[in-house]
């Protein structure tokens, strides 16, 4: 079974440099049979990054993937609070660099139309768009999007596929929130391996809209892989979730860049 991991950071593993941390992540990935890792952020967390923070984080991610081009994909970290700088980073790392996706985190909620130029340009470049989301019982950060916020964004770009990071964490709510917005995909990463998440996602969204990710190294690859390995679904559906769905989203940009994967 091919496994691509949608959601990894340069955190939770030893190493002083991005290259060392990437190497450490890959050693664990090897043990677990994971072929490719999508990587963004994590040398030092910055929830509300300045333009300089974005530049630094993306430079670190670039260093991490440059050494392992056959095992890694880079996503550029952007912020709707700094649209002009984000567009410049997008040009630098995706249009004119090796990265293939966009990571949006918690600086500003994604229902704000201020984010639209970033989404528009990312879509032109066929970049994979990943938006962190949570429904936290104890309250989201001020700039932290919910799946409902992402639905509002997705309605403005109905032809652009986007990934609902963490499926909102509280996944029984997150899956329902994105169910009718067909351009949204569910990322299984970064919550406890609570039984039923994958079965419900497949039941409500269809097997083609569910994607495996780990949120490693802060999360265990093991606990997140178990959401698919342990689910009561067919091997054919597991293969879609582990690799085929993400690969399908990535193929347009990979083909445009001449990357075989």
């Amino acid at each position, binding site marked *: 079974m091919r496994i691509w991991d949608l959601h990894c950071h340069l955190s939770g593993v030893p190493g002083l440099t991005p290259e060392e941390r990437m190497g450490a*992540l890959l050693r*664990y990935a090897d043990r677990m049979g994971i072929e490719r890792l999508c990587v963004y952020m994590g040398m030092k967390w910055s929830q509300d990054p300045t333009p300089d923070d974005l530049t630094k984080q993306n430079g670190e991610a670039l260093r991490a993937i440059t050494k392992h081009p056959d095992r890694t994909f880079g996503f550029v970290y952007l912020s709707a609070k700094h649209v002009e700088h984000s567009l410049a980073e997008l040009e630098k790392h995706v249009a004119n660099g090796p990265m293939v996706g966009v990571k949006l985190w918690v600086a500003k909620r994604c229902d704000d139309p201020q984010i639209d130029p970033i989404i528009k340009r990312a879509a032109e470049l066929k970049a994979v768009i990943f938006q962190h989301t949570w429904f936290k019982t104890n309250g989201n950060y001020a700039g932290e999007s919910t799946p409902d916020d992402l639905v509002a964004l997705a309605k403005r770009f109905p032809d652009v596929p986007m990934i609902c990071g963490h499926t909102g964490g509280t996944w029984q709510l997150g899956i329902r929130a994105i169910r009718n917005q067909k351009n949204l995909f569910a990322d299984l990463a970064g919550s*406890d391996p609570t039984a039923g998440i994958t079965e419900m996602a497949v039941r409500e969204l269809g097997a083609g809209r569910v994607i495996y990710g780990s949120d490693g190294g802060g999360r*265990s690859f093991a606990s997140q892989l178990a959401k698919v390995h342990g689910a009561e679904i067919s091997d054919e559906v597991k293969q879609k979730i582990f690799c085929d769905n993400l690969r399908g989203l990535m193929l347009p940009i990979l083909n445009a860049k001449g990357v075989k994967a």
Partner: protein
Amino acid sequence: MTRRAFLGCSTAATMLAAASANEPEGIIDCNVTIGQWPFRYLAGQETSGLPAFCQRLKSKGVTQGWAASSEGIFYPDIARANELLHERFVEYSARLLIPVGSINPSLPAWRDDLGRCKDKHEMKIIRLHPNFHGYKLDDPVFTELLSAATEAKLLVQITAQMEDERTQHPLMRVPPVDLKPLGDVIKRVPGARVMVLNANASMIATALRGVDVSVDIAMLEGVGGIENILATWPLERLVFGSHAPLFYWEAAKLKLQESELSTGQLAAITHGNAAALIGVGTSH
């Protein structure tokens, strides 16, 4: 590693079978909870589904599961919860599951419940949920309970948390147990045998540091979580616990593969340490 090499090793069956081959004694799963959870559907938790649930655990390499009931968390009539658990296991679990009694020392007559667990149901283990039952570990009643359980030669499991606070039902927000007082209490109860379930790495590294308890691996997160914790935590006090069926059982199993562990370490974690705690073999 080449893609061809990946394709040769990455199927779930291959991975899980490879891990099983390193555990010839089988697995004692110290952290199972039988019954439905009020806030989401758990497959196979109807009483009629228990044989199939046990069969699934067996097929994964489990030779013994220490199982309490979700009713034991929620019923004020906790005696009935323990009775039900005992009845179900006698009839349906094919001796795979060992019943773990639930005790709530904030209820009237909790000492009767403790006596019934030991004498009527012949239980060897009790499980506590201080955060659901409304007491703290530095409340005198916890020391009383630990003393009584120790006198009765019972192993005491304390569940630090059942689920991530961020995902709890808004009308039932239950913070994790504050484990910091535990070390002082245990010092006052010679001979106490205590296991903490669902502690995360932060709890183990801070509140439980230097405390004479065992912990399970169910909520150890981070890549290489087991090898990381073993850098500072004694091997003989780490046991296999899955938190099934609330968690996918495979999460705990795959953690054994993610960390680089010797045959001796694997045997201790999956079997030896737990067996030594209750002084019995598994039912194979």
